[in-house]
């Protein structure tokens, strides 16, 4: 009886069904994104990145001072300490900034670095920033010649050229993409100069109090550099993510509220349209309970169908968003199907409450009176 009644009043119901289906689509889509994107992006973020930076007071510092400084930090608290030395080099006649570093510890202090190819693992291997790779059309596996020239000054001039193999392209979304990375030892050989550093990044575990204490201890050593605390990349990224999640949640709630309003409006229109019929049903013996049952039945059926449609379309929607925005695909979550259906049914049921109240309030004697 209910299905027949739904089938013969298709157009009106299609509007309500569409609203529910769209609501359910947004619900299942956004919830999928809500859970999946942080899971994918957060894997890296969850690792510790650098949270302390050592920068020279004037111009550079020695590797000996660096060793002494980090010795202030207990071994078990030091996750990684990465020295950096910067020099200008030329590749394909282009002047570029080269950073000499220790890759093994860079992996620890910059866990979010995305390398297309491999990290350098032996001598005379290069990792180049994405921007440079694009500008100079360099691909992993290529061999490039790196030229170093020391400007004429007080000491003797150096001009040196060494072949490096490019193992990987670095993507970070930041300024790192404008650098060429090589092992510190390779840079010392290329420049024929040892023992100087320009910067170091440290990853130290512990709360801010402990970190401050370490920084003070290093600074009191007067090694010719300052230790500064920096906010972990992780921390800010997680905040962004949680804000994104809050936004997604908010949008979902708003969409569900809109769905509810749309369904309530449609059902109210349906009830108004069918006042006479409701009066007739009551006149021939329908109790309030059976009127409620009928309209609720209709509403919940719409909710179920809309929910089923929405949970699948929602997955496709989430997949499309994920692929286009985050360039990663997501896995189908079977649990979301029943949840979406239940939420859709609940939303429709709530939306139906007010219209159904007005349906039970219909007075048959009044509505069945002649025109």
């Amino acid at each position, binding site marked *: 009886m209910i299905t*027949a009644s739904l089938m013969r*009043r298709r157009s009106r119901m299609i509007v309500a069904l569409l609203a529910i289906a769209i609501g359910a689509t947004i619900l299942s889509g956004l919830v999928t994104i809500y859970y999946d994107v942080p899971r994918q992006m957060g894997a890296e973020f969850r690792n510790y990145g650098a949270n302390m930076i050592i920068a020279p007071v004037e111009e550079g510092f020695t590797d000996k001072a660096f060793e002494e400084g980090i010795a202030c930090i207990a071994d078990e608290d030091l996750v990684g300490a990465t020295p950096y030395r910067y020099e200008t080099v030329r590749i394909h006649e282009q002047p570029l900034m080269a950073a000499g570093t220790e890759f093994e510890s860079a992996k620890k202090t910059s866990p979010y670095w995305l390398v297309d190819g491999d990290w350098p693992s032996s001598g005379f291997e290069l990792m180049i920033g994405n921007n440079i790779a694009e500008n100079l059309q360099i691909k992993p596996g290529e061999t490039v010649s790196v030229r170093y020239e020391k400007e004429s000054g007080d000491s003797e001039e150096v001009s040196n050229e060494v072949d490096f193999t490019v193992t990987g392209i670095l993507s970070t979304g930041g300024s790192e993409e404008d650098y060429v990375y090589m092992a510190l030892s390779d840079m010392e050989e290329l420049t024929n100069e040892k023992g100087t550093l320009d910067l170091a990044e440290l990853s130290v575990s512990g709360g801010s109090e402990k970190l401050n204490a370490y920084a003070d201890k290093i600074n009191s050593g007067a090694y010719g550099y300052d230790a500064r605390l920096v906010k972990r990349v992780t921390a800010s990224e997680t905040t962004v993510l949680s804000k994104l999640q809050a936004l997604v949640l908010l949008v979902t709630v708003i969409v569900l509220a809109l769905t509810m309003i749309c369904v309530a409006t449609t059902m109210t229109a349906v009830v108004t349209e069918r006042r006479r019929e409701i009066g007739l049903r009551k006149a*021939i*013996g329908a*109790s*309030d309970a059976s009127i409620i049952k009928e309209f609720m039945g209709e509403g919940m059926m719409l909710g179920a169908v809309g929910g089923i449609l929405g949970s699948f379309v929602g997955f496709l929607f989430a997949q499309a968003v994920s692929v286009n925005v985050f360039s990663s695909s997501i896995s189908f979550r079977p649990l979301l199907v029943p949840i979406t259906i239940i939420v859709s049914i609940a939303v429709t049921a709530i939306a139906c409450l007010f219209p159904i109240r007005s349906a039970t309030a219909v007075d048959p004697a009044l509505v069945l009176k*002649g025109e």
Partner: protein
Amino acid sequence: MSLLELKNVSKIYGELHALDDVSLAVEKGEWLAIMGPSGSGKSTMMNIIGCMDKPSKGEVLLDGVDIAKENAKNLTNIRRDKIGLIFQQFHLVNYLNALENVMLAQYYHSIPDEKEALEALERVGLLDRAKHLPSQLSGGEQQRVCVARALINHPEIILADEPTGNLDDSNEETVVELFRVLHEEGTTLIVVTHDPEVADVAQRKIVLRNGRIAKQTVNANFTGHIRFEV
């Protein structure tokens, strides 16, 4: 004891006495016609008898139960079990076919029984129209579906408010003939009508005026057959 007894019933809307101290008894199996000018309180009386409205004053005894004192839920049950309603505007559910409209009354009463519903349609001569929607039926056919719907649950009283008001003579005759058969089977009939020919078929006729019974006549040569003045 009469099947239906109204004792000093009034229905008051503000200043207006739609029914004014009406007393009336209807016996089981009786065929009663109610006439009267527009606004005289005919529909008001039918609504009260039909448990869709309550009097402001007085008692309405149906099978010895004072329906003026029952709550809405009990009134629904009494209406469902004892009353069959026929309206001037038919009031069929427009998206249900003739058969489903009849079965709807069964649905609220007990359980839908297609065979029984088809038999009811056969009685009103509409077996071949069972699957037609109301919009595909003529006015007379629609009213016959209403009759089938009203009799399907074997009510004690059938209340018809202007059942022939929208029908031509030949359809009017068909409907009155159905009433005659129902009367012969012992159903109590109360028919509100403006049409003297329809009123004159009944066993007894009352005329309402300003909410009061102005006149009562008993049909001495009752046959149950309609006589058209030529």
